[in-house]
C-alpha cells in the first residue's frame, strides 16, 4: 500500500510538472493572442483612423466603489494627435439572464455619442439571448450614433419598458441589461469624460 502511495505521489509530481511546463511554454503566446483579440475588439467599437496612440496600454481602471459601476471597469482612452478621441469602457452588467455580460462601449470625446457597442463575453441562452452577439445578429449596431439626447433619457430603454430600443423575439432580459448598461455608461461619461482624459495625460507626464 505504501508503495502505491509513493507511485501515486510520483505520478502527481509528473503531471504537475507537465502542466506547469506547458503553462510556462504557452504563457507568452497566450498573452500575445489575448492582446491581439482585445485590440481587434477595441477596433470594432472605434472607427478606423479614429486614434493613433497605443490603445491597449493607455487604460485606466475605475474602481466600482468610486465610479458606481457594478464591477471594476477598465477604460481604454483613444486619442489622435494628442487630442482625446474615444473612451472605450469595458463594462460588466449583472442584469443578464445567466451570469455576467461583458460589453465594450465606445463613446466619442467630442459629442458624447456612441461610436460602437460590442458584447465580448456572455453566457446567455443560445438561440435566444445571444442575438446581441455581432456574429449572430446586427442588433448592437443600432447603438451607433446614439447619445443621451438622442433618444431622450426617458426613452433610453427597451420597447417593453416604454423606451425606444427593440428587444429581440423571445428575450427581453438580455437586451434590457445591455441597454441599461450602455445608458449608465453614457451617464458616467457625460460627467467624467474630461477628467478621464486629463488623468491619462497627467499619468503620461509623470
Amino acid at each position, binding site marked *: *500500500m505504501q*508503495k*502505491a*502511495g509513493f*507511485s*501515486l505521489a510520483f*505520478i*502527481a509530481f509528473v*503531471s504537475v510538472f*507537465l*502542466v506547469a511546463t*506547458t*503553462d510556462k*511554454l*504557452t504563457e507568452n*503566446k*497566450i498573452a500575445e*493572442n489575448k492582446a*491581439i*483579440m482585445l485590440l481587434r475588439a477595441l477596433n470594432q467599437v472605434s472607427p478606423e483612423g479614429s486614434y493613433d496612440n497605443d490603445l491597449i496600454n493607455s487604460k485606466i481602471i475605475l474602481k466600482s466603489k468610486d465610479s458606481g459601476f457594478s464591477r471594476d471597469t477598465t477604460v481604454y482612452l483613444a486619442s489622435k494627435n494628442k487630442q482625446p478621441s474615444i473612451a472605450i469602457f469595458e463594462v460588466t452588467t449583472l442584469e443578464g439572464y445567466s451570469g455576467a455580460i461583458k460589453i465594450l462601449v465606445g463613446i466619442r470625446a467630442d459629442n458624447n455619442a456612441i461610436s460602437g457597442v460590442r458584447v465580448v463575453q456572455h453566457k446567455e*441562452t*443560445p*438561440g*435566444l439571448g445571444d442575438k446581441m452577439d455581432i*456574429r*449572430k445578429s446586427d442588433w448592437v449596431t443600432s447603438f451607433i450614433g446614439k447619445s443621451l439626447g438622442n433618444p431622450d433619457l426617458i426613452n433610453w430603454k427597451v420597447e417593453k419598458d416604454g423606451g425606444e430600443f427593440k428587444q429581440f*423575439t*423571445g428575450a427581453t432580459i438580455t437586451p434590457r441589461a445591455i441597454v441599461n448598461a450602455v445608458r449608465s455608461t453614457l451617464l458616467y461619461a457625460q460627467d467624467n469624460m474630461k477628467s478621464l482624459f486629463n488623468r491619462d495625460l497627467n499619468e503620461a507626464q509623470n
Partner: protein
Amino acid sequence: MSSTVEDIDVIVDSKIEGGSCSVDDCKKIITDGLWHNNPGLIQLLGLCPLLAVTGNVINGLGLGIATIITLTVSNIVISFTRNWIRKEIRIPYYVLVIASIVTIIDLSMNAITPELHSILGIFIPLIVTNCVIIGRAEAFASKNKISRAALDGFMMGLGFALVLVALGAMREVVGSGTLFSEASVMFGPIAENWNLQLFDNYKGFLLAILPPGAFIGMGLLIAFKNVVDKKIKS
C-alpha cells in the same frame, strides 16, 4: 472487500489482452463505438455536457471534436502506462491523467490556434466532467494495446460526436427552424451561407432549446435506436 470481483474482471479481460488488432476485432471496436455500445445512447455517459451544449448543430460539433481529441489521447496514455499502474491507485491515476491532458490541450490550443480556441475553448473544461473518458480508461484502455485503445478512443469519441450532432440538429430544427446557423463562427467566411432556414416565418419552439428539450430529444433518440435494433433483429 471487492477485490474478488476485480480479480474476476482481470481474468476475463486478460483474454482480450492477447488478441492483436485483426480485421474482425477492429470492426467490433468500430461498431461498438458508433452503435452497439455508443457512449451517448447506450452507456449514457457524459450526459451533463451532452445535454447542456446541444442547442444547435455547431455547438454539438464543437464539443464532439474536443471530445474525440481528448478521448483518443487519454486512451493512448492510459494504455501505454497500463502495466506500471497498480490497480489500487488506478482511479486517482485516471483522474490525474485526464485532468492534466485536458489542461495541456486547453493551453496548447489557446497558444497555437487562438481562433479555434475561442470557439472550442468553452467546451474543453466541460470535458473534465465527462465520464465517458474515465469510463473508457477503466473499461478498455487499461486492458488493451495502444493501437486498440487509440482506435477505441477515436470511435467512442466519434459515436459521442454523432449523438451530439443528431441531438443538436433535432433541437435546432424544432426550436428555431434552422440548421447550421452560426456555422461561420466555426468554419469561417466559407460557411456564411450554410445557414438553412427550413420554414418561413417560423416562430420558434422555446422548449426544444431549453434543457427540457434536451432530455426529451435524448429520450426520442434512444427510443429510435431501440426500434432500429429491434427491426434488425427480426
